[in-house]
């Protein structure tokens, strides 16, 4: 089963709420759901849409085709009608229904609401009711959810919504075309950033600091909403520079700390990444990419900040870059990032993008993430003799040194942005300098040893490769081929990567950027070179249909293309909708 419902509306008309309600209802019925929002960088005006894709099995991507489309205004009709399945239904208000398409279900929405004793704010409730009726999904589940949503507003509001929902449901039932019934245990329906927040909290996050920036803001909102429910401080900082330095301070003090932003905010944080590295203070940075450079297209997606992360801050130092490939993985890896940061005392990045951060997916459960803190010292030690410091930066076999935190007797030392001796005192002694660089770099072998091997599915001579968020659409569109995805992006273990590519003769890499950044990194780190690159940098992620199409094109060339395959006209027929082709009235 693979069923898709899309809601299209002007910004502020409630497309997201409607979509999320539908997503939650099907998740409660045990389905796998993927929810995908699109919106321009505006608060009012412009066009918003939300697609809910429902399936029996795991899904990690939206798709182009829709079975049901709910449109709340004439623009939405024009934008989305092309993506309606042949046997689909478009639910539309009679006042602006063109009336030329037999797939239209034109409703006198205002009259129906009035008859049911509701008001026009309940338009979305009505449409959800119609949709559930069309697929035969139990109305009681919607009624239950309406009670939860509107309960605080009083019985009358709940009852009016229920009446409107029922009125819609009855109409839907009269046109019933499909049969979708609850099939199992409820699942969590969670957005990428919320999954990251939950994962971090499961792994013991105690401090988060951030400054609002799309698409990272919703992580800040989520964590603030959990303040007071467990030991947690969340600071809305005066700027991103403050945010990262606050997180470094908190981490130095001995708590698990994280900061987050998008590329622009992270540019401001850059200098402090080096401080964390030199002072060996465990730090996690959650970076949700959007379309750049500069302000770019703030509410759209891209994978173009990889080298920004790899090159952030002056000097040479180790860092770890994770790129979760799905929303459940964002839960796990954001938690793991906190482990890696403390075990190796290096900066760790969780590199996601708008597509992953703001889409929703279902999770069966939220398994606790085991906490490994590395050599942190939290208990008092023997008092040090006067005039002595603790050897915080002791040259060890693994390169990682025991780390007492303030409050611990006998651990006196400073965290410092200067090169330092073992006892943390500033030094310009060449031997000490070299010793400390070697010590810090020695961690690499241990980090590589722990690094995750690429995710491999399927077999064959052609490998289709993605990294981070693009795994979902790329794997779905490349089912015929061997599929390889990277969630551990840097540093790469040559042997593990080569093993994943064993038996492969052709390599096609899909990237959501204009220059194939990950392919360059892959070549630099492992010598593996793709035979063809497929690049999309319009502001949208790939759709499975596009991946399929690109691979068909490449098949004719035996999957070899000296020039990258770029997003062209013939890709557009696989797009969601193209609002830029229409005049918004």
């Amino acid at each position, binding site marked *: 089963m693979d069923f898709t419902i899309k809601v299209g509306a002007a910004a502020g008309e409630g497309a997201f709420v409607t979509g999320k309600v539908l997503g*939650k209802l099907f998740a409660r019925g045990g389905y796998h759901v993927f929810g995908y929002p699109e919106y321009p960088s505006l608060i009012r005006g412009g066009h918003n849409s939300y697609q809910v894709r429902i399936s029996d099995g795991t899904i990690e991507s939206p798709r182009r085709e829709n079975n049901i489309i709910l449109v709340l205004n004439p623009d939405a009709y024009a934008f989305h009608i092309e993506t309606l399945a042949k046997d689909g239904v478009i639910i539309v208000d009679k006042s602006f229904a063109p009336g030329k398409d037999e797939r239209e279900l034109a409703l006198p929405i205002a009259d129906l609401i009035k008859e049911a004793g509701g008001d026009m704010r309940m338009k979305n409730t009505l449409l959800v009711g119609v949709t559930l009726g069309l697929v035969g999904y139990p109305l009681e589940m919607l009624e239950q959810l309406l009670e939860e949503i509107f309960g605080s507003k009083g019985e009358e509001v709940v009852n009016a919504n229920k009446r409107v929902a029922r009125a819609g449901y009855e109409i839907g039932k009269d046109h019933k075309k499909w049969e979708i019934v609850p099939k199992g245990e409820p*699942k*969590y*329906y969670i957005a990428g950033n*919320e999954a990251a927040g*939950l994962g971090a*909290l499961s*792994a*013991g996050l105690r*401090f988060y600091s951030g400054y609002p920036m799309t698409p990272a803001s919703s992580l800040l909102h989520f964590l603030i909403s*959990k*303040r007071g429910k467990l*030991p*947690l*401080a969340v*600071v*809305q*900082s*005066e*700027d991103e*520079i*403050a*945010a990262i*330095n*606050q997180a*470094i*301070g*908190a981490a*130095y*003090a*001995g*708590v*698990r*700390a994280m900061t987050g932003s998008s590329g622009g905010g992270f540019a401001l944080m850059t200098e*402090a990444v080096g*401080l964390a590295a030199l*002072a060996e203070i465990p730090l996690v940075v959650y970076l949700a990419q959007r379309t750049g450079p500069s302000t770019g297209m703030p509410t759209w997606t891209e994978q173009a900040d990889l080298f920004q992360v790899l090159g952030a801050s002056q000097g040479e130092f180790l860092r770890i870059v994770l790129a979760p490939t799905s929303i459940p993985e964002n839960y796990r890896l954001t*938690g793991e990032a906190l482990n890696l940061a403390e075990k190796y005392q290096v900066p760790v990045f969780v590199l996601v993008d708008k597509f992953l951060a703001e889409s929703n997916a279902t999770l069966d*459960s*939220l*398994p*606790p993430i*085991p*906490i490994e803190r590395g050599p942190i010292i*939290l208990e*008092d030690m023997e008092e040090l003799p*006067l005039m*002595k*410091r603790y050897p915080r930066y002791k040259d060890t076999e693994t390169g990682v040194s025991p780390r007492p935190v*303030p*409050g*611990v*007797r006998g*651990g*006196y*030392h*400073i*965290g*410092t*942005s200067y090169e330092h001796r073992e006892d943390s005192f500033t030094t310009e002694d060449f031997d000490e300098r070299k010793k400390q660089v070697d010590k810090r770099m020695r961690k690499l072998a241990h980090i590589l040893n722990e690094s995750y091997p690429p995710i491999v599915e399927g077999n064959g001579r052609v490998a289709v490769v993605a990294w981070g968020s693009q795994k979902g659409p790329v794997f779905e569109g490349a089912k015929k081929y061997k599929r390889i995805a990277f969630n551990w992006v840097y540093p790469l273990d040559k042997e593990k990567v080569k093993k994943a590519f064993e038996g492969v003769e052709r390599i096609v890499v899909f990237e959501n950027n204009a220059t194939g950044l990950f392919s360059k990194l892959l070549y630099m780190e492992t010598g593996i070179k793709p035979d063809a690159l497929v690049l999309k940098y319009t502001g949208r992620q790939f759709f499975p249909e596009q991946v399929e199409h690109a691979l068909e094109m490449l098949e004719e060339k035996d999957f070899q293309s000296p020039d990258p395959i770029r997003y062209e006209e013939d890709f557009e027929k696989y797009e969601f909708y193209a609002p830029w082709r229409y005049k918004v009235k």
Partner: protein
Amino acid sequence: MEFNTPEKPQWCPGCGDYGIHTALKQALHEVGAHPKDTVIVSGIGCGSKIPNYVRSYGLEGLHGRVIPTSVGIKIANPELTVIGIGGDGDGFSEGGNHFIHGARENFDIVYIVQDNHIYGLTTGQASPTTPKGMKTKTTPDGNMINEFRPVPMALVAGATFVATAFAGDIMHLKEVIKEAIAHKGFAFIDVYQPCVTWNKLNTYDWYRERVYKTTHDPSDWNQAWEKAWEPYVTDFEKIPLGVIYKKEREIADDFFSPGRKNLVKEPLDPNGIDVSFLAKEFL
């Protein structure tokens, strides 16, 4: 003393940093602070080398970022005595935004500025507090720009403890630092400090002729405001020293960290935390 280090600071002979260093250690000792519960946070500059010369915990961070770094430490572990310290270029130029918002939000830290009106470590450029007319490497014909006024600025921004002191009067400075440590909220001390190498105008003698200990009521905003402006309205003929303003109000730490627990001491289950109780809204 428990805060002494084997290494001796290497500032220029006669540098005001020596006085601040001595007063700080003495103040910590006298308030009974233990090195294990003390964190000296600095930025970058001559004076910012100070964490190297105090045997306690410390974080010598980035130029301009003394306040956010201190804030992160204090919020994580409110039981610590966190002293942020840095120069005037560090705090008022590079870190101006943090100064304004640190004062506004009233974080529970001490913030000492070693205010010598010049960039020392980078060899003598004009700073935000360089007096008008002064010649420096970057103002070879004399500084044309109005100076930054830290004390009125701190007041306007909402600091709840604002004081001035003079690096040449260690006993007084020490007492002011002790009072700042005892204060709950953002405690700012602007320490007038001669730079014997680069600032030939604001010398020890220059200050001694102008400074006096103020005896006004620091809880009275109007009197505080008058004292804050006195150096500027008298063309630096009269420079008051001491607590200019002091009035406690709610601190941001309580807002950002409800219950204000010592988050370091909150136990962490090695098996991970079951967060399903936080995810009910997603079911």
